[in-house]
């Protein structure tokens, strides 16, 4: 099939079902595309041999009538998910040679549902970043280009995963979202990505950044593709104490396109100073589409919105400083010899981690240290609770919330902010929901004046991913966004 790469995941599944194409054929097409788009650097490790073996096995299973939710679908795996026998770097020099001897729960689930692994996708080091530029394995670019022709960031941290889906070097990919690492790259790359409710997908085997915020999710071309993939990933895992024992509904069935009478909240605090007109316009357009579909648009207030980033930049580094203590050169990963044990630690970590990771470890260590714990860390935990309560209060009035995903379109890799704080501002719209553990989705809804994709974000109530997907499907249909 010449247009195999143009199929959505849902289309591909039905083509496979109808024997119009085999998983091997589909996989070969993706491997060829992986080759053709290598300059984007979406993958850190390509695994074409594994992919073909898995595709063959999938075709055999299908022939035997054993068909999983993702049967035969070639996917990319963010290189933060541990994959048994396949190197897992977390985008870091410190894990350059780390080959896990175990498989993460999410990838286990995906593969047991028939997914085929094309490779491990690029990301910001330890998922810390918003541009994929902190990766030790080089910048990743979005396949989208503006008139200036300059390479654009795919966003981060799941930049490789987003870029791969947009560039059709994967049909779908996994991501993780700590403060916006799925939603922001989805917006920048003109694709759809969902971060489910905290606790919905198991974190077991996912290299940790900030445990109380990290949540696996996925990228796809469409809302429906997201529903299918999330279905295969979600569910309680007794090995993850923070995963929630709650039935996973049939997400695809929840996409009815019917949102009549639904109340959609528009938080006024998301109209930030200096937000480009085109973003404001896109947001208004989104409201109109939903209103046209019968939803009620409700003005809401989330007064602590501007406190979310400062809260996040205390909590996430604090947890990260502790989570990354295990990279000490003793049991796995890089070791740089030193005069004694402490020197070995300092050299290994000093040379193994990049600048942004070091900054966050330092900040995290500082805010947890004696004398500062209450002023920073506990204060942030209190404000976080208040932010959650604000959302829960609002959800007494509305069913979902609509916001822009990012305050701008993708910036060029060359002009990326060098000041960390400016870079952090990229996550201003995604971080609040992360702090509250809420499900959120970004879908492409229009283009900027430069011709770059812009995303809208739909936030839902805890464990109401189905509602989020359904609202998003209405926007998707109305937007008619032209994918690459």
């Amino acid at each position: 099939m010449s247009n195999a790469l143009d199929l959505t995941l849902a289309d591909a599944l039905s083509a496979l079902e109808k024997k119009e194409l085999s998983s091997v054929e589909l996989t070969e097409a993706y491997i060829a595309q992986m080759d053709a788009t290598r300059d984007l650097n979406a993958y850190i490790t390509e695994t074409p041999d594994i992919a073909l073996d898995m595709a063959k096995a999938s075709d055999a299973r299908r022939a035997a009538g054993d068909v999983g939710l993702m049967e035969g679908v070639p996917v990319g795996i963010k290189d933060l998910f541990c994959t048994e026998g396949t190197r897992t770097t977390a985008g870091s020099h410190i894990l350059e040679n780390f080959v896990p001897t175990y498989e993460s729960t999410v990838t286990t689930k995906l593969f047991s549902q028939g997914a085929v692994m094309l490779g491990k996708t690029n990301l910001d080091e330890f998922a810390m970043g918003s541009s994929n530029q902190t990766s030790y394995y080089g910048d990743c670019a979005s396949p989208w280009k503006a008139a200036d022709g300059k390479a654009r960031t795919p966003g981060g941290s799941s930049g490789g995963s987003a870029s791969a889906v947009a560039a059709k070097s994967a049909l779908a990919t996994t991501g993780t979202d700590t403060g916006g690492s799925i939603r922001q790259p989805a917006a920048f790359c003109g694709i759809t990505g969902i971060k489910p409710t905290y606790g919905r997908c198991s974190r077991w085997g996912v290299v940790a950044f900030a445990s109380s915020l990290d949540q696996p999710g996925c990228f796809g071309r469409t809302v429906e593709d997201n529903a299918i993939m999330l279905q295969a990933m979600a569910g309680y895992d007794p090995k993850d104490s923070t995963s929630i024992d709650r039935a996973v509904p049939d997400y695809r069935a929840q996409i009815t396109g019917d949102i009549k009478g639904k109340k959609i909240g528009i938080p006024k605090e998301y109209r930030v100073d200096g937000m480009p007109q085109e973003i404001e316009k896109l947001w208004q357009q989104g409201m109109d589409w939903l209103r046209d579909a019968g939803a009620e648009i409700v003005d809401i207030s989330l007064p602590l919105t501007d406190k979310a980033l400062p809260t996040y930049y205390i909590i996430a580094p604090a947890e990260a400083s502790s989570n990354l203590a295990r990279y000490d050169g003793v049991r796995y990963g890089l070791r740089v010899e030193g005069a004694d044990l402490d020197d070995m630690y300092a050299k290994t970590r000093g040379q193994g981690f990049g600048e942004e990771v070091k900054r966050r470890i330092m900040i995290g260590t500082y805010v947890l240290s004696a004398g500062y714990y209450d002023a920073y860390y506990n204060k942030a935990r209190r404000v976080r609770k208040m932010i959650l309560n604000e959302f829960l209060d609002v959800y007494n009035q509305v069913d979902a919330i609509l916001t822009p995903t990012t305050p701008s379109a993708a910036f060029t890799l060359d002009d990326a902010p060098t000041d960390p704080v400016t870079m952090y501002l990229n996550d201003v719209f995604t971080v609040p929901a992360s702090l509250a553990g809420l499900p959120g989705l970004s879908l492409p809804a229009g283009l900027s004046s430069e011709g770059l994709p812009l995303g809208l974000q739909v936030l839902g109530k805890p464990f109401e991913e189905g509602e989020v997907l359904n609202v998003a499907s209405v926007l998707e249909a109305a937007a008619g966004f032209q994918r690459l």
Partner: protein
Amino acid sequence: MAIDRDTVTRVAFLSRLEIEDAQKDAMTHDLSNILTFVEALNDVDASGVEPMTSVVEAYAPLREDQVNDGGYPDKVLANAPDRVQDFYAVPKVVE
């Protein structure tokens, strides 16, 4: 809040991160900026609010006391930079 180089040195030691002297000023500058940024929380009156322990209203699931893991030294040692027999080896530790 601005922090000084000595603080950076102390925090770097606590974090076991070697930071070259040449980088210390940049690090001091960046950390000061970030700390100033997060101090926006000083404006929030959070008195009377319990610090959040978990985002979900749930409690720790408890495991039955069964031996169902371990017993694979080769797997846990597979990536060791310095393995001697079935031990991890590190530079000599003096207590």
